[in-house]
């Protein structure tokens, strides 16, 4: 019945996607190589560049509404005058895109797809076709989202949390189809990542290289797998909730309609029960990437490998107990708030410990500040700011004032920008040689780094100030609030906007670097960084099937500077 005999072990059908397998049999035509590929590396690239493209759109949105904030009412270059409903649509879709169509696909799906099979020393994901299906559904979801901006009434403008009744009734949000398409897009995206997550988890659990024990798995793989588990454990209620919301919008049911026996608060709980673990779904892969990079470039063994895992587990479990801190003043029973304050503030403990571990790892290292290392260190430095400012909001008492101010916004951008921008650039520049077989240009890389990180602080430190001074979110124009139109407010808003323009300008350096390196970058060789993990054993870029012959694993991933060895690194696949 339950025997692991080999011919039992090769199922290729978790959820019967054969029905979708229309494209399985082209032979390496352009389509089968780049579009309908089942190769995990190609799918990773598809996710990576779809995600980045969506990120550019989201960035453009932020440019538009920041300009509106700084120079309200003026016509904005490349856009024009921003009307209130356009403004709402922009902020809503900026948030949705950056979390669901940039952070998730790039951090979880792209790096997950690229790294997991390579780092575990196997030739592909366990379910290549489900992998492809996952990307296709994701692409569809992106198309639906973009489409939702062009239907009559324009895109959905109820904020990315889309609280009903505003989101549930078109006479309130004035977007009869935009809101529904938004819900559908988000739902599809969840399905895509459920399929992907099953693939990641199964691959990591079952397909490790011979000899690789649990604690020989690189941290980043652990983190991506934990993230997928968190996602699968938390998204269900919201998936059901999304259907309810779509029904409320289009069929006229009353799930969230108070006068018909429904309850708007229910949506908030469904949303945040997923929404908070989601924060850690994107955080964990980011810290995993950072762990890989700082160990390589400080030539150090990771400090307390197991502790990192325990803190990650702790964070993951705790993250299911904190969701209502987003709703302190949203009308939940005040007595519940006390419980959630305690759990929320306590979640700082595993996160703080994780940061301590990373700092401790630097001690006694031999640090070289390459571009990836700069990004990784910047992640730690900046994410700590995001972490500590979170305490103000987790503490229910002070959240009474801070809730829905720009302080909150600055806080979570200090977590999400390090995650979705800094860590992504870190990982991208670090694995670029493996992805494309070329080295990136260090000078351009460093220019891009400083041109991104400094303006980033220039954007959000001012927003901390305006937040403390009472600016609240999602306001298209402050002119009606005398207390929010002081010269001080306006000055800081302009500083933030100008910093954003600088940041955007410097992103072109990155694209220049990308193109230059792909063309002229010098050949990378298998292991340019002299790293230990198995992906550096494969040729760069890895061919279909990744390895000449699949490697065995003999030791942990972080055996750097081992005493009495002349080489200061010791690849996992190298026999003792």
């Amino acid at each position, binding site marked *: *019945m*339950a*025997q692991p005999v080999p011919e039992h072990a090769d199922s290729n059908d978790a959820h019967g996607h054969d029905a979708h397998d229309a494209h399985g049999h082209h032979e390496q035509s352009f389509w089968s190589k780049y579009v309908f590929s089942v190769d995990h590396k190609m799918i990773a690239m598809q996710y990576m560049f779809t995600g980045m493209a969506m990120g550019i759109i989201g960035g453009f949105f932020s440019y538009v509404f920041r300009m509106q904030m700084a120079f309200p009412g003026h016509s904005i270059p490349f856009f024009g005058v921003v009307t209130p409903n356009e403004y709402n649509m922009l902020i809503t879709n900026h948030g949705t895109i950056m979390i669901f169509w940039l952070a998730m696909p790039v951090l979880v799906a792209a790096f997950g797809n690229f790294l997991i099979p390579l780092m575990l020393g196997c030739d592909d994901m366990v379910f290549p076709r489900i992998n492809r299906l996952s990307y296709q559904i994701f692409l569809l979801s992106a198309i639906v989202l973009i489409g939702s901006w062009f239907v009559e009434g324009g895109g959905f403008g109820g904020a990315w949390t889309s609280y009903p009744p505003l989101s549930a009734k078109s006479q309130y949000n004035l977007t009869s189809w935009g809101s529904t398409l938004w819900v559908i897009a988000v739902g599809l995206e969840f399905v895509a990542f459920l399929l992907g997550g099953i693939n990641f988890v199964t691959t990591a659990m079952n397909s490790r290289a011979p000899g690789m024990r649990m604690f020989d798995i690189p941290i980043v793989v652990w983190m991506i797998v934990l993230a997928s588990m968190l996602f699968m*454990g*938390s998204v269900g*209620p919201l998936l059901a909730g999304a259907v309810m919301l779509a029904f409320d919008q289009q069929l006229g049911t009353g799930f969230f309609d*108070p*006068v*018909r*026996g429904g*309850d708007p*608060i*229910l949506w908030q*709980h469904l949303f945040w*029960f997923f929404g908070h673990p989601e924060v850690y779904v994107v955080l964990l892969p980011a810290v995993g990437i950072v762990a890989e990079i700082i160990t390589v470039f400080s030539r150090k063994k990771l400090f307390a490998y197991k502790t990192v895992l325990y803190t990650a587990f702790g964070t993951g479990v705790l993250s*299911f*107990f904190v*969701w*209502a801190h987003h709703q302190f003043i949203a*009308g*939940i*029973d*005040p*007595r*519940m708030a006390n419980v959630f304050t305690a759990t929320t503030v306590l979640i700082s403990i595993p996160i703080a410990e994780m940061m301590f571990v990373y700092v401790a790892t630097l001690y006694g290292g031999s640090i070289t500040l390459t571009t990836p290392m700069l990004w990784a260190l910047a992640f730690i430095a900046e994410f700590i700011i995001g972490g500590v400012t979170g305490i103000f909001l987790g503490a229910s008492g002070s959240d009474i004032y801070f809730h829905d101010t720009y302080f909150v916004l600055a806080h979570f951008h200090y977590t999400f920008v390090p995650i979705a921008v800094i860590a992504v650039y870190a990982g991208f520049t670090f694995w670029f040689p493996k992805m494309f077989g070329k080295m990136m240009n260090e000078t351009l890389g460093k220019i891009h780094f400083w041109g991104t990180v400094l303006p980033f602080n220039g954007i959000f430190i001012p927003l901390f100030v305006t937040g403390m001074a009472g600016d609240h979110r999602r306001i298209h124009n402050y002119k009606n609030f005398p207390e929010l139109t002081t010269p001080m407010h306006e000055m800081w808003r302009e500083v933030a906007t100008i910093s954003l323009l600088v940041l955007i300008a410097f992103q072109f350096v990155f694209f220049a670097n990308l193109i230059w390196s792909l063309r002229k970058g010098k050949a990378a060789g298998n292991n340019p960084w002299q790293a230990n993990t198995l992906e550096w054993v494969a040729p760069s870029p890895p061919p279909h099937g990744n390895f000449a012959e699949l490697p065995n694993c003999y030791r942990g991933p972080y055996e750097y500077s081992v005493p009495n060895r002349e080489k200061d690194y010791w690849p996992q696949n190298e026999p003792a």
Partner: protein
Amino acid sequence: MSAEAKHDATTAGADPHEHDHIKHYTKIYVTLLVLFGISVLGPVVGSAVGSKALVLITAFGIALVKAYLVCAHFMHLNIEKRYIGYLLTTTVVFMFLFYAGVSPDVMEHRGRNWENVAAQQETLRAQREHALHPEGHGEGVPAEEH
């Protein structure tokens, strides 16, 4: 039963045992049918003796038993690796957690410093309407109290 199943599992494929398999599955199936019968009769008896508790016990108690039997013996969780069971249990626990966190706001219609007036009114309206034409116009089993 679980023990027997384990025994079968370890020797699955050996022909003499395969018969036991079918017997085992059939036994479970019959048990399920019996339980099912009880859960259907529950409301009938319950409404006869006018005990709501009986209805609920037969309904949900038996649902749990049935679910257990299917999971353990049809899905073979009884001989599957332990942590699969733990995994599924964890997800269920998360749902109870969700319930615990949400019900104070959604299930209750009044709490500390707040009152869900709309829900209270909806309940009153519905019950008044039901009092007017209790049978409704469905042909289901007539309702107990309310």
